[in-house]
């Protein structure tokens, strides 16, 4: 049973900032809703919750949550989040970012934090464009896409951020469109609970700046009709809507399909666990050395 929105709004959102700044038909509001439902289901302590973001429409999300929020600089959210989580592992740190924020200016911080396996959850609003600055091309914009800065169409290949995260060694990666509400909420919950860096990519609509479709609802149809599941361990051999290997995915993606699904779920020690061990080891060594020299 879904909890009524009013109740959740009362508990988790800053009512004096509502209505939000997001345009009608924008996916970001939906992602706010999914996140609220995820943290409510997990019964999280709002005092210990820190939302961190970079710059972009999607990065305005932390303001609306009744919790701690840090709206940092373009692309740098994960660097800030690293300092926050490392020095206070009791906090739950959730990063909101956009495709420009994380895949262009901030890509290195993203990959390095995956390598370190910092225990944070990164939720990327991938609307395949720079929404806030009015619809310029982004590293996730499809090839052939006409934008304000690719007036003759985009000749660059696009990143699939989830596969990039998987290749970098992320412990949890899930990719959906905002039309997949149930899966998105489940993914956010799983990501938050996961020890280590979890990446949730949500393909989103920016009807104002990208103007691919005349109506916001057309985005939803597009999301539902064009998405194909990536499911490496699928039982149902016959399903035509399931890909079991990455090459099939890439080909389909080049043909305009949206690959969704749980891309990775594995376990390895997170940064804090290893740091704790390192601390103990080095302190022991210090005292041993002291004894020997005394």
């Amino acid at each position, binding site marked *: 049973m879904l909890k009524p929105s009013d109740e959740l709004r009362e508990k988790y959102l800053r009512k004096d900032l509502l209505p939000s700044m997001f345009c009608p038909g924008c996916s970001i509001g939906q992602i706010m809703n999914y996140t609220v439902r995820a943290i409510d289901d997990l019964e999280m302590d709002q005092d210990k919750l820190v939302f961190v973001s970079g710059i972009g429409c999607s990065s305005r999300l932390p303001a609306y949550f009744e919790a701690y929020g840090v709206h*940092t600089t373009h692309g740098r959210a994960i660097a*800030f989040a690293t300092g926050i989580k490392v020095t206070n592992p009791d906090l739950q740190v959730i990063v909101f970012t956009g495709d420009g924020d994380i895949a262009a200016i901030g890509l290195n911080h993203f990959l390095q934090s995956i390598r370190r396996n910092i225990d944070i959850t990164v939720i990327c609003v991938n609307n395949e464009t720079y929404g806030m600055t009015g619809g310029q091309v982004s590293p996730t914009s499809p090839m052939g896409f006409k934008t304000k800065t690719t007036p003759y169409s985009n000749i660059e290949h696009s990143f699939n951020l989830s596969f990039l995260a998987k290749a970098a060694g992320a412990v949890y990666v899930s990719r959906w469109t905002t039309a997949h509400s149930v899966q998105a909420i489940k993914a956010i919950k799983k990501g938050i609970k996961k020890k280590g860096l979890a990446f949730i990519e949500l393909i989103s609509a920016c009807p104002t700046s990208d103007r691919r479709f005349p109506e916001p609802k057309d985005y939803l149809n597009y999301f539902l009709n064009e998405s194909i599941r990536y499911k490496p361990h699928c039982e149902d051999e016959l399903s035509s809507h399931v890909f079991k290997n990455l090459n099939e995915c890439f080909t389909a993606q080049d043909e305009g399909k949206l690959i969704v699904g749980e891309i990775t779920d594995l376990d390895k020690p997170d940064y804090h666990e290893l740091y704790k061990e390192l601390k103990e080891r080095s302190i022991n060594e210090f005292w041993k050395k002291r004894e020997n020299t005394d």
Partner: protein
Amino acid sequence: MKEITVDELIQPKVQFVTGNDAIVYGALLANCRFFAGYPITPATEILESMTQYLPLLKEGYCIQMEDEIGSIGAIIGASWNNVRTMTATSGPGFSLMQENLGYACMTETPCVIVDVQRTGPSTGQPTKPAQGDVMESRWGTHGDHNIIVLYPNSVQEALWTTIRAFNLADKYRTPVVLLSDAAIAHTRERLEIPLEKEVEIIKRIPVTIDKSKYHPFRTGYSVPSKVPEMDRFGNKYHTYLTGLTHDWKAYPETNSAEVHEKLVRRLYEKIDDNRHDIIKYEEKYLEDADIVIVCYGIASRTVYSAVETAREKGFKVGLFRPITLWPFPEDKIYDISLDIDKFLVIEMNLGQIYHSVLEYSKGNCQVESLFTLGGQLPREKEILKKIRKR
């Protein structure tokens, strides 16, 4: 497991060490417990030592980040856990830090940024001392802002100035830039190391107000001050931070000139109103001086002996050495200018503090300069030549 104290960690209490060592010791004594950095000559040893010491201390963490942008981002974020934080770099890295330095100003986040200067522009000469970042430290980040910049001139002074940098950062909720240079960084000198109990720690003022009345940028609640009390993550107040212009609730306000002006003026005034507390300098022979040499940091080290030689030769020469470069000791410069014939500004750049001295002496006296480049310290012979020239 038995805890290691800083007193136990830093031994013996008198050492023959470098300026970089002194900054590390000062930071640890000041209770700095998070350091994030990226290797760069001549600051690298600070990061190396921090990776050695911080894991040994309770709640101490050190991380080598992927670049300087990430380093300063990490220390700003960590500072909100009520942790004293620091990073250290040199020119190229300091340039990369500028955007987030402004973010620390705007969100009023205490942190210490060490810039061990080498010659520039660009990659310049990595091992050569210079003073070319003095204006960058004041104006490097965009927009109107205020900042505190300190610059010691010896290994011993580096230790105490580092401690002071942390205290000023917390007291005024501002980033503090600690300037050093390749010469101070790598020269060994005698260092007396105080015990932890001999070090004064000025803490941030925590938020105590009732949650219903709390606003992140409301000032003057517990003390009459333009510095807001500071919350921390994991507390109950749910503070929101943004680099956008914000009102006292911390909510973005991108259209109102009034809100912007109120905020930026307060950020200026919280530092400017307290110049007497922040500004520190050394003065010598000012009583009877006709000529006063203004110098700071490493360049001042050769000036001391030149002043003595000149005095032996009968020249009435004095010395004024700002240890706080920003806010600039402008009143002091003005006062001195009334009684002397000439200022001689000596810097290892092509004239940075020179312009401030010119500005605040208001035409009361001459302002001469001696600039050196390429890592060259000012030579006594040249200083005396300038003094002799009337």
